[in-house]
């Protein structure tokens, strides 16, 4: 097989001095020095999270402090990587939430499994589970990253409620419907 030899183009004089390249590089650097910064001093500075961002799934309470989850286990059912695990329990016959009857005894989300798809939030009939703005998780062990109920409520906090479904139910019960 014939071999074709290609000759490299020789450098020009200007190229040989290397100065034009240094100069053009310095110009780019100088331009960027006076531009506004777009990087953040993470983790001291935190980015602004846009609305609708799907961060870590969390459990929320309603403005009256009642835990919204009634452990219907739909999120457990719909969760594609099976990260959610709920043990349902019965609420006491006494107390403010007695009329809700049911609540989670245990609620855990395996954050190592979670894929942040947001199905749990979409399926929740009580609007109790929300993917909020928390996005960075770390831990030293795997167990640490299986978040339990108290941790999930701590992350979730309280969100506004447009329905107050159960409170309305309770007031209807108290008002009664005599005939």
């Amino acid at each position: 097989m014939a071999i074709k030899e290609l000759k490299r183009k020789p450098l020009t004089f200007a190229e040989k001095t290397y100065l034009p390249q240094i100069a053009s590089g310095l110009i780019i650097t100088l331009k960027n020095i006076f531009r506004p910064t777009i990087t953040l001093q993470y983790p001291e500075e935190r980015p602004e999270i846009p609305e609708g961002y799907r961060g870590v799934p969390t459990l929320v309470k309603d403005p009256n402090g009642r835990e919204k989850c009634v452990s219907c286990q739909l999120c457990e059912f719909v969760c594609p990587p099976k990260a959610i695990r709920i043990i349902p329990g019965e609420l006491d016959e006494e107390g403010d939430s007695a009329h809700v009857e049911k609540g989670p005894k245990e609620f855990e989300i395996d954050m190592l499994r979670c894929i942040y798809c947001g199905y749990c939030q979409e399926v929740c009939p009580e609007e109790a589970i929300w993917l909020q703005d928390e996005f960075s998780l770390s831990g030293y062990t795997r167990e640490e990253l299986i978040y339990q109920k108290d941790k999930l409520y701590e992350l979730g906090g309280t969100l506004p409620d447009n329905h107050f479904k159960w409170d309305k139910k309770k007031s209807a019960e108290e008002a009664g419907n005599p005939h």
Partner: protein
Amino acid sequence: MSDEQKGDGLISVFIDGNEVRCKPGTNLVDLVDSVGKEIPHYCYHPKLSVSGNCRMCLVELGMPGKDRATGKPMLNNDGTPKVMFFPNPAIACGTRTSPGMRIRTQSEMVKKCREGVMEFLLINHPLDCPICDQAGECRLQEFSTEYGKGYSRFIEQKVVKPKRTVLGPRVMLDDERCVLCSRCIRFCKEVADDDVLGFVDRGSYSTLTCYPGKQLENNYSLNTVDICPVGALTSLDFRFKMRVWFLKETPSICTESSVGVNTMVASREGKIYRITPRRNDEVNDTWMSDSGRILYKEIEDENRLTGYASQGAFSPPDAAILQVQKYFESEKIAFVGSGGNSVEELYLFNRLSRAAKSVGNYLVSHIQEGDELLISNDANPNTRGALSVGFIESLPETELPDLASRIDSGDVDTVIVYNEDLIVAGISSEQLAKVDIVYFGTHSNATSEAASVVVPTLSVFEKAGTFINQQFRLQKFLQAVPGPDGLIDDLVSFSQLLNHVEPDSGPLETVEPIWAELSKEVSQFNDLSFNTLSPEGAQLDGAAFQHLPFCEGKTLHYEPAAETVEAGT
């Protein structure tokens, strides 16, 4: 051609224009169901009387017209019979078929009727599906998706009714969810014969309630939970334990008595959550007892055997089986089997006893008081299985005086016990101490404590097999959950032992090869195999055992054979 001419006693009716042949007087809901269509219904139940109060099953009916003057059939111009449809819809559950009847299940009028009924039913419904145990198997959910309007026009205040009412030791009532179908009331009255439920008040204030001072506490109360089409009646045992869509259902057989109630075992990830009845019109219809539903709790009992033991110390399974083999070399060996074990296990146990030249095979009878419905007098679910495989020839006794005297006289020095407590069977602890005992069983008892070798076995939920019930009906159960860690199936242990004493017996470690042998060896089992056995079971010929005075009395679908001679004299 007229119906009489066909001569098969069947008539023609037309469902949405398609001809269907059926017996005259068939219930329309059942008939339409049998051709693969559905008439939605709440109050109708095939095993209860018809009350016709939910109005969900409205259909359009028509009959071939007859001339009033002459009584002759009215014909169209082309000679076909002229069909006269009734102007108003009729309830299908309260209608029985008659020749030439036309049924419209999909017409505009029918659809509007269903929408209307659904709308009324949902007016006062609390919509608490997220906390309702019925969600997932709720007729109200299913039908409102399929036949409902999809939205609500109701803006008034809903009627408030009592919630979280405890009706009895096992049943909880939520009146807001009730659709007033009255199935539970009819069940208590007609099947359980304990008429404690009823409606009070009128109109939308109608409320299901228990008779003052009484409770829904009969042993069949949980059937009301099964037949409740909505979540009004829920089981206290299953309450808030698990959502039904997670549950895997495995057909099984109840071991409470020799009735052999067909059941469904619902489990998730190896844990059983509930047992419900499975319909079998020859055995239990659609019912089962409350006491049978909690039998699954036994598998997690404290005294469940979970480890192999030899001479009182834990041992690996292989070593324990090797130990058992040593005891099989005894010349004076006796076998005590249990009527709670499956046909296959008893067959292998019998083969073992023959191979080991057993000096006597015993079965312990457990007599209880039946309730003439679904609990028979015999607490052994498989007494007839032991008879059929030839483990015993006569009926078992509650005590074993014969074995006791043989132990005393020294004729027996080794006893292989399978799932029985010899102390309960009348053997004293001194007598137990005289012999070597090998115990196979699920739970520990006085016998297992005295045993030289203990081999833990699997419960009915953890293995597959068959039972023969009091009607000589062969019924199979499948494995619902895995057994405790490290436990070997009884059949595998027995097969290993059999291979030791009878080296050419071949592998008999699962039910199928055992059935290949059984169908050859036992004439009753000819042409039967485990895989082809239908879920309803197969009726066997019990003629060979008819002379035996079985202890069962009358139950739901069982009449005992004619009085035994002793009783007559």
